[in-house]
């Protein structure tokens, strides 16, 4: 990008600067021996054209909406449309969550995102002994289509997109969404949304498991195939780095493992379903974390888009530019928040949200200030939403696209993250791909090491956490903490009982038996699941069929 003459001048100038630095250091040494990013990659004091001399503008940076998409996936980015304000929410009963959804939409939220409770996430009904004490605690409890009808009451399914953080039973919850659309007379080609449906990162990080890896991947590819054919606006997988980062990975690991997961899914759909890559790849979406280190995060988002474009074009030979582009949702880092002085979390979330926006996210969740204490109160969730709205409307960051492009530092960091992530991806390829790497515990142990290192840095005060290891004060309590109603489990169990009594149980048994037979073949299971949920089969009844046939995955307990 620079002439040899310019670079020569840069180097001469740098020598003069270095002399000044020496003088300054003699008077006052720098604050630290070594400066590093949040992921502990070393950072120099200054970056110059010399650091990005290998970059080629057209090849590596270019224009938004055009390969390699470093600058954004849409040609107009936020000048055309802001990112979607999509607040992850769910608590207690379907009624409680529906109320929160309507509140957030009224306050200007532009997309929905569903948090399910642990029994729902793991494929258990509220009345299962495994579910005792968990109902509605960590999200909304859903057992049957009846709950889903209440959850979506008054929500125009063809007017708002809905994301569902659901993995092992993704087909079941998606089937409920499609079932509700059917009952409301809305065609599937008019509804948009996302199912997370990413089991590889579950084995690696988030740990809601049900089936072993092989049948898990089969169900994922069933969803991709079904969506490609019948629900064209649906994102059939949200390939997620968020949870990898929350489990303690570095930014580089988040980037590398997420892309390696993406490679594994694309490979599986091509091989198992014999689909043309360009038929399904445009509906793959991604989900990243935005952590505290401002520039490292921005660089990560830019590197992610560039890498995915190269993977899809060069590795999978995709021809449709929509297969090359990476669209992603971002959530600010829950793990960066502190229980101490919780109001400080608003500031952390603000800078993380800003990094996501400068990194070109399509959709954003901002965490509430009280999330290390409980599920967000309405007050805290509203401030979190307002944080995005202030960024979108008041501070001028939506005018120019990819405003940090060309920064010596940001470009250099982007290339550095990309280079280190390729090293991981090559290593995983050498192991035989992500499934093989997971089987030998590779990503799990890499993350465990990084998480331990991070905690040690905090304990040794090498990494400052305000209110925890510096500027410690007496604890200030937040205004209000959301309490999940103690009666929710009982009421939910009662409703489940009613639904089971009122449905046509012979029909349910027949459909479940058809599902069982189909599960033993390589048929797409989605039509069977849709038929089952429409007859009010419960989530667990469907999942038990699969557990019975495929077995259950057990946590190897790496630490």
């Amino acid at each position, binding site marked *: 990008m620079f002439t040899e003459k310019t670079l020569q001048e840069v180097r001469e100038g740098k020598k003069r600067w270095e002399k000044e630095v020496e003088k300054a250091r003699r008077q006052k040494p720098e604050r630290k021996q070594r400066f590093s990013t949040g992921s502990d990659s070393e950072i120099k004091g200054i970056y110059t054209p010399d650091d990005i001399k290998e970059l080629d503008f057209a090849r590596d940076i270019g224009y938004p909406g055009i390969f390699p998409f470093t600058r954004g996936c849409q040609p107009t980015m936020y000048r055309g449309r802001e990112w979607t304000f999509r607040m992850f929410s769910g608590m207690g009963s379907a009624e409680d969550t529906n109320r929160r959804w309507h509140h957030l939409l009224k306050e200007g939220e532009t997309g929905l995102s569903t948090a399910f409770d*642990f029994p729902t996430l*793991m494929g258990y009904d509220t009345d299962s002994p495994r579910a005792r004490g968990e109902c509605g605690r960590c999200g909304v409890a859903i057992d049957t289509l009846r709950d889903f009808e209440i959850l979506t009451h008054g929500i125009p399914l063809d007017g708002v997109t809905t994301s569902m953080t659901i993995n092992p039973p993704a087909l079941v919850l998606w089937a409920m969404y499609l079932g509700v659309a059917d009952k409301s007379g809305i065609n599937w080609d008019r509804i948009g949304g996302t199912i997370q449906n990413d089991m590889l990162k579950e084995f690696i990080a988030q740990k809601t498991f049900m089936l072993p890896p092989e049948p898990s991947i089969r169900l994922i590819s069933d969803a991709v195939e079904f969506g490609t054919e019948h629900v064209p606006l649906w994102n059939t997988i949200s390939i997620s780095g968020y949870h990898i980062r929350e489990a303690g990975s570095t930014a580089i690991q988040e980037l590398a493992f997420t892309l390696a997961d993406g490679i594994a899914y694309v490979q599986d759909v091509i091989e198992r379903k014999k689909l043309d890559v360009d038929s399904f790849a445009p509906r793959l979406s991604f989900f990243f974390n935005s952590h505290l280190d401002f520039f490292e995060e921005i660089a990560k988002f830019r590197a992610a888009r560039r890498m995915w474009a190269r993977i899809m074009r060069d590795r999978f030979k995709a021809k449709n530019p929509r297969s090359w582009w990476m669209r992603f949702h971002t959530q600010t880092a829950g*793990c960066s928040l502190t*229980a101490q002085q919780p109001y400080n979390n608003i500031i952390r979330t603000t800078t993380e949200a800003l990094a996501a926006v400068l990194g070109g996210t399509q959709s954003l969740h901002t965490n509430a200030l009280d999330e290390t204490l409980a599920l967000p109160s309405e007050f805290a969730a509203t401030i979190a939403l307002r944080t995005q709205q202030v960024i979108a409307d008041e501070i001028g960051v939506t005018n120019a696209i990819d405003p940090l492009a060309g920064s010596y530092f940001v470009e250099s960091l982007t290339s550095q993250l990309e280079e280190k992530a390729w090293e991981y991806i090559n290593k995983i390829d050498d192991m035989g791909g992500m499934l093989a790497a997971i089987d030998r515990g590779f990503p799990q142990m890499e993350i465990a090491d990084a*998480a331990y290192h991070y*905690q040690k840095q*905090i304990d040794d005060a090498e990494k400052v956490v305000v209110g925890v290891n510096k500027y410690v004060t007496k604890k200030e309590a937040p205004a209000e903490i959301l309490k999940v109603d103690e009666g929710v489990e009982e009421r939910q169990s009662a409703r489940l009982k009613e639904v089971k009594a009122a449905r046509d149980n012979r029909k349910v048994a027949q459909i479940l038996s058809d599902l069982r037979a189909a599960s033993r073949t390589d048929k797409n299971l989605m039509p069977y699941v849709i038929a089952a949920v429409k007859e009010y089969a419960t989530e667990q009844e469907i999942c038990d069929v699969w557990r019975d046939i495929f077995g259950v995955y057990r946590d190897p*307990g790496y*630490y």
Partner: protein
Amino acid sequence: MANSGRKIRILVAKPGLDGHDRGARVIARAFRDAGFEVVYTGLHQTPEQIVAAALQEDVDLIGLSCLSGAHMHLFGRVIELLKENKVDDVKVIVGGIIPEEDIPKLKKLGIKEVFLPGTALEKIVGWVRDNVSPRC
């Protein structure tokens, strides 16, 4: 403090369906690095499985972690099962997302200490050294 030369043995356990295991795994490693013998159950254990593991592994301390909000039921059930099995020499400590107001209730149940987010590893290790001795 009794010293038979046997190391302190600790069971780190994740009860219930909660998948948040970062804290539990970091603690397990810190205990190991501090010279304790550690058994980590892995995720998704029932209280019955946890108490059975504690008995089988002959541990001196159980560390439970829960971030899903189901702690009152799950921790309470572990304590209840220890009592049913007439185990009175295994201490129980807990950590996770636990509202302030639940702490006295948990202590009343018989839980020795509650560690909240932001606690330094050293503090937890120090608590173990001060309060747990290996059985002969």
